[in-house]
């Protein structure tokens, strides 16, 4: 075999094995699209995620969240939530409500076995946990493209279009609140579009609790068009709406009339120990009435 021949065979072999790796490629198309999942499947997945063994987070006392210290932060608004652990019984209705509000996809069997669910809210030892929208968020500092950013109103927001999927934010979150889209949910028939207002995230993008940003935006648009001062008073998040015990309270930390401030003022506030120093917007309430 001379050299030319040798190289020819080698390159053929290389191309062949490359195609072997991409073996799904030729069979792609609409035929591959699976049927849409049913709501039952989402419910089953929530039950499965909740049955996953998890340990309770270590909670420490924190003061009431105040004004953000970031550049250009709003003086009027800082949205957040408080979760009443005395009332919460860990039923998981918030998870399902969140899925339906934010079009969170199912995961494949493989991913589920690895415990990689997409749920923005998860139960950690019976305590609902979601992104705490830290005022001093480590994920935003690590994000190379600026896709993870902070809004003036205190939300840790995501620009899905700008995310390049380096997963650096996920690595840098002490509580691992961020979820990575390992699958193309639409392509694999894992996604059901419950809510038209929220886009379905594409493959390879990070996502997490958005504090129902779209609801806030809608409300803001309405109030601003009418010309008033917007304090987000009419808004509530999907999980807070769904909670049968009213354990989740959404509101504006800087608005003294907000239900959140009214409730939280009388209670002791807690946050996960490794987030306590990062100025979280979402805290837990226990004791002290």
């Amino acid at each position, binding site marked *: 075999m001379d050299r030319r021949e040798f190289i020819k065979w*080698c390159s053929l072999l290389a191309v062949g*094995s*490359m195609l072997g790796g991409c073996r799904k490629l030729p069979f792609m198309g609409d035929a591959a699209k699976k049927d849409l999942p049913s709501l039952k499947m989402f419910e089953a997945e929530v039950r499965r995620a909740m049955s996953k063994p998890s340990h309770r987070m270590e909670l420490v006392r924190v003061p009431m969240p105040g004004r953000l210290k970031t550049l*250009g932060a709003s003086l009027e608004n800082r949205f957040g939530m408080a979760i009443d652990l005395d009332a919460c019984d860990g039923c998981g209705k918030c998870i399902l409500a969140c899925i339906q509000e934010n079009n969170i996809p199912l995961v494949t069997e493989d991913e589920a076995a690895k415990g990689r669910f997409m749920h923005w809210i998860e139960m950690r030892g019976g305590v609902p946990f979601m992104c705490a929208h830290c005022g001093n968020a480590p994920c935003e500092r690590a994000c190379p493209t600026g896709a993870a950013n902070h*809004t003036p109103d205190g939300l840790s927001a995501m620009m899905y279009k700008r995310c390049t999927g380096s997963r*650096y934010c996920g690595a840098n979150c002490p509580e691992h609140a961020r979820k990575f889209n390992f699958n193309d949910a639409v392509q694999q028939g894992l996604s059901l579009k419950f809510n038209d207002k929220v886009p379905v995230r*594409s493959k390879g*993008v990070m996502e997490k609790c958005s504090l129902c940003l779209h609801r806030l935006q809608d409300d*803001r648009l309405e109030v601003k068009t009418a010309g008033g001062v917007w304090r987000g008073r009419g808004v509530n998040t999907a999980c807070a709406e769904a909670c049968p015990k009213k354990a989740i309270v959404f509101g504006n930390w800087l608005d003294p009339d907000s239900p959140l401030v009214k409730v939280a003022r009388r209670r002791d506030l807690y946050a996960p120990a*490794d987030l306590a120093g990062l100025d979280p917007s979402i805290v837990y309430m226990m004791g002290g009435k």
Partner: protein
Amino acid sequence: MVRILFIVFLCLLVPGLASMGYSLWQGPAAWSVDTGVFWGLPISLFVFWIGLAHAGTLISAIFLVLDVKMERRTSILAELATLCALVVAVIFPLMHLGVIQNFYMVAPYMESRGSMANVCSPLVWDFCCILAYGLLSVVYLVVHVLADKSAVAASIHRPLAWLLFPMVLWVHTIVSLDFAATFVPAWRGAFFPIYFIVGAVFSGLAMVNIMLCAEGYRMRQLEKLMLVGSWFLGAFLLWDFALKGNLSVTVLVFAVLLPQLMFVSAVRESTLGRVLVSSSIIVGLLLERVFLVFPSGVVGFGWVDLGLICFGFGLFGVIFLVARLKLSRVIEGEEVLMGEVEETVPKRPATGRFSYFAPLTTPEFRMLRFPLLLGIIACTLFLVWVVGCLEENGIAFSDANLVPLTCPIITTVAGIVLCLRPLVMHIGKVGGVVMVALAALLGVLAGMVYGGVTSVPSGAVVSSTGDMLDVGTLPDSTSTLDSVAIIRTKAVFEARCAGCHGADGRLNEKFVREYYPVPQNLDISRMDALGEDSLVNVILNGRTNMNPYAGRISPQMARGLVRYMRLLAETPAADNAARNEGGDE
């Protein structure tokens, strides 16, 4: 021998290609990923290969700088290995990305949409450093190869080495900051920069030693340096253990204990012994990186992961061998390729080299001062611009975060300027044309990145109330809107556009950051320059900054909106405020 090696590497590369293809197709779900940090083998391999990539340049540059003589064949070999390892290394962070085609967004380069890469992120520093380093390594190798024939190339060889020396160290330091500048408990360590540099140099020395064995000669100084490296790596591993309490015994055995066999003369003197010891170092350091990236333990290593490791080694071997054969005329001593030859260290010239130079008068400095000055000026301008952009966008940053960007910028500019003079002297007409073409291409690319690409809304079109609103009977294009139409258009504008563009058409500054991309500021001169038709087109079909509204509003309405925007732009802000208040009554 070469053919056998070639076949061995191909055998590694081909299955590696399969797993690479599968990974690219499947995305990060293909290989095993740590559940805590979302990172997996590609990052370990990146750190490993970039470490090897530093070794070559570092070894030849350091030795050149420190006046330790190395034979040309050794140093060129090392530099060649550097480039090959760099090619392998850049593949891994790219494939690691979830959305590979968005990788350019990591470059700290403002787009017209106004979004800036977050210069506080170590990944941005990484991107800049590797780009600059790759460019300069190529230049350095070319200069080194040419240095034999051309005096001009030889004259810039040493200055280039001085430029590269800090750059190499800088790159690996930045790689270490990817880990050290996070909140992951296992990655905490202010000593990481030096630890990583030691690891990189150490693995590089092992690689160069293996290559020298394959070429059939040896360099005792490198072997001694390798031993010293193993001690320091051991010290760092123990220090890591003392601080955080995690120690990998496998790494300690492979990378620290086994290399001590070099003290046994039977091992030291046999080629096989040297190869085995060097290989154990390579394995140990690869394992070290793997354990580093998986803080909560390595689980579920599959065929894809193994394939990726094979891919790295196979690709490196194949590229290296091909380049080695192509360059064999340049690398002297081709005829003794496989013979056993001792590396002879040339005697130092007794005079000349040791002659004393008054401060700032060395020939290298004379060559470097002008390029360096330009580099520093360029870097300062860039930083001022970046700070301006960041402040404009209200992004918080600390000055310390800008420091890592300085070295790559200064070095790149200085390196290019340094090479320009010999380049201009060397290339003929054809070369000149190619150069100009390349520069033009670069400019076009920069412009394309600046312009961005059309963004399509992710997911389906957001539908809400009032689909296909119409302004009713819109007058023909010559006249302006009548008062009824204005009120209707105003309602649509405030429902649809005001969220970003502001009710007065001057951007809702506070709100725009919640949107992506950041909308344009529509002032009168800009609108006139664009023309009504093109603006209607933008509203209907979208552009960089805009989502398309065709199907949600009628073309007539779009035209009405454009005219309304013009109306807003014509009136001063105060009037608009008054008009808004009037409208609300």
